[in-house]
């Protein structure tokens, strides 16, 4: 694949009969904030040039100035629709650096919450892209389902969108009592709403015609552009980090990786729909197999001791002080840990110099290759396909621009 040369932003030399359309940064379909300079010939897209950076917050640089655990709230804001996955991924990477492994219960809860996050993310993606295609009602069905899932996150850690649930070596707290029953009710609500949406969309002729054959990305191109996640699987490549290099306890669950064949928007939609069902399957298995025991690593060199202990035990008080002021201190070295984010491989590359603060944090965002592939996907299509494709690649500004 040839990379197009950098676009000349001077619209004087567009060519005869062409129109430059500046979609965004303030445009209803450009969720998050991104600008897409589209050159049109009638309704046909000649070229599209995404300009990113409107949501750049300096996540990576900020992390260098805080302790490892203080990075975790920042990771919530990467993909703010599936924050648990970011939490878990970052904590896993630091634990890999430290060479510790959290207790089994913690790992199961992290899997459970990650899958809940994946469901919320896919529900949002399908709902929002259906809304952009005019199917407004589906959006509310799916957002109601998402709300049920958000409530589970709220129960577990007290926050819907920015949970900051994971800690290096454990979790902020254990699940509350009665969580399993609440989760079962929420999963039921999701399944019902999903079935409604399925009936409204999947075999809807208008919806099918809008998505089928648009925004196509071939398997080869997808691999060449390092696209991951549902978009890659829709192109026919069965790559899923949970299967390819299992982390946490994903190897103990029975789940399928849905794979498409055309790599178009409709396949992406189908893959996401199926992944929601598979995620619910994993979450249910995780709940059923949830072991007892502590959720935190036993060593006070890694994780804060319980508050009560700091009042009566000098070692705990010292650990509390050291961990709060200096932070956990991984040995010098570097590590890469990938997790399967909702949109693809979410990787954390961490470098430690042995102090309590990261020397370098680098995130491999799944949205970046997807957004980079957007011009190739929309070229030659109609302007309406830009919206359909953009909705299905589910660009998340917070993650893309960090």
């Amino acid at each position, binding site marked *: 694949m040839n990379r197009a040369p950098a676009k000349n932003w001077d619209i004087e030399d567009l060519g005869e009969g062409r*129109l*430059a*359309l*500046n979609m965004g940064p303030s*445009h*209803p*379909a450009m969720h998050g904030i991104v600008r897409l300079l589209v050159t*049109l010939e009638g*309704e046909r897209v000649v070229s599209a040039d995404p300009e990113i950076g409107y949501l750049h917050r300096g996540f990576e640089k900020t992390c260098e100035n805080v302790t490892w655990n203080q990075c975790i709230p920042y990771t919530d804001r990467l993909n703010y629709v599936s924050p648990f996955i970011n939490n878990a991924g970052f904590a896993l990477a630091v634990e890999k650096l430290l060479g510790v492994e959290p207790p089994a219960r913690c790992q199961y809860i992290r899997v459970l919450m990650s899958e809940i996050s994946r469901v919320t993310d896919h529900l949002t993606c399908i709902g929002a892209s*259906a*809304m*952009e*295609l*005019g*199917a*407004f*009602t589906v*959006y*509310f*069905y799916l957002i*109601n389902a998402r709300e049920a899932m958000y409530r589970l996150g709220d129960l577990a850690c007290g926050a819907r969108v920015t949970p900051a649930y994971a800690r290096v070596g454990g979790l902020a707290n254990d699940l509350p009592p009665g969580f399993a029953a609440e989760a079962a009710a929420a999963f039921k609500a999701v399944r019902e709403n999903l079935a409604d949406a399925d009936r*409204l*969309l999947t075999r*809807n002729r*208008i*919806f099918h*015609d*809008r998505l089928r054959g648009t925004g196509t990305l071939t398997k080869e191109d997808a691999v060449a552009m390092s696209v991951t996640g549902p978009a890659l699987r829709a192109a026919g490549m069965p790559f899923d980090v949970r299967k390819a290099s299992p982390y946490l306890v994903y190897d103990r669950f029975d789940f399928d990786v849905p794979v498409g064949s055309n790599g178009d928007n409709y396949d992406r939609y189908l893959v996401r729909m199926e992944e929601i069902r598979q995620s619910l399957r994993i979450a249910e298995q995780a709940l059923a197999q949830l072991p007892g025991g502590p959720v935190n690593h036993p060593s006070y060199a890694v994780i804060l001791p319980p508050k009560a202990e700091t009042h009566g035990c000098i070692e705990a008080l010292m650990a509390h002080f050291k961990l709060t002021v200096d932070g956990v201190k991984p040995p010098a070295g570097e590590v890469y840990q990938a997790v399967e984010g909702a949109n693809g491989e979410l990787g954390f590359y961490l470098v430690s110099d042995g102090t309590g603060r990261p020397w370098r944090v680098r995130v491999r965002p799944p949205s970046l290759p997807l957004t980079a592939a957007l011009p190739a996907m929309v070229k030659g299509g*109609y*302007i*309406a*396909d*830009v*919206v359909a494709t953009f909705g299905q690649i589910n660009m998340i500004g917070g993650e893309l621009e960090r």
Partner: protein
Amino acid sequence: MTTPALNTDLLLFAAAAAAKVLLFLGGAMGVTALLTLAERKVSALMQDRIGPNRAAIAGLTLNGLFHPVADGLKMLFKEDFRPAAADRLLFALAPVLALAPVLTLFAFIPFGDYVMLFGYQLDLCVADPPLGLFLLLAVSGLSVYGTFLAGWASRSNFALLGALRAAAQMISYEVTLGLTLAGLMMVYGSASLQDIVRAQGALIWGWIPAWGIVTQPFAFVLFLTAAIAANKRTPFDLAEGESEIIGYFMEYSSMRFAAFMFAEFAEMLLIAALCATLFFGGWQVPFLYETGFMLPGGAALELPQWVTALMQTGAFALKTLFFCWLQLLLRWTLPRFRFDQLMSLCWRRLLPLSIANILATGAALLALR
């Protein structure tokens, strides 16, 4: 030279016409305003929400009944923005051109048969030209100017795209719209809407009302599809396409924008009224005649003429509201077409089908003669 007697008649005629215009147009505009609320309430019901229920007058909310008033006031107080590069005259003219044809069209719709008032026979239709159906198509064809000029005069790329889509779409679907109505004219032998409604009062085999839906069932489906498309509502709202190109009225604000919205809702009401008039017997109530009910079995119930007229107007209103509701339901169920799909639906599906419908109607009429 005019005689005093003629003057009285003329004055009476003018007064009656003015009263009818005020009553019917006022009613239509009132219902249109309520339709904006209905749209929000129906969508809320379908989407598991409550919908607007906060606007209150003296603490009274009536479950959101005052929201159209609040919306109107809000629009009134918004800044009336005009882009610097816009064509001043056309920009100001476009909302008027969008709204005027729709409101004009209400004049042709019969909302009842007649009523005897102080010994005068008052036709319950503002205007009943003999070629009403043609006039209807002609005037509704004018509304494309408002839409197109709005996009053109704004000098905005998004608005221009919307205007181009709107022009292509509305002109295409007007063709189908006209052809679907040809079958009706063949069946009822008239192009006057009042005549068509009267003809629908006849009975087939002594018990089936000869409504348009019975004689031209296929045309009804085509008509409703084409009419919604001509009105640019979802699933045909490409000219607006709020998540794609925002629409031909993108640069409009304040009451100018409200005029476009109002025109859309008024046209929705108009389509509903036309569906009722052309295919569902207009003001006809099955087996209700000037003198009262006459059932096929022979049973009869005599009614005063004014009761009959009231029931007929009520029936017309109910039928119209039903089709308004149907359009709302469609709007909130279906996704939007893409431009090329919309065009191919019109020219490759609906148009041949409507022509086939005309041929089939002709063949059937010949066979039945």
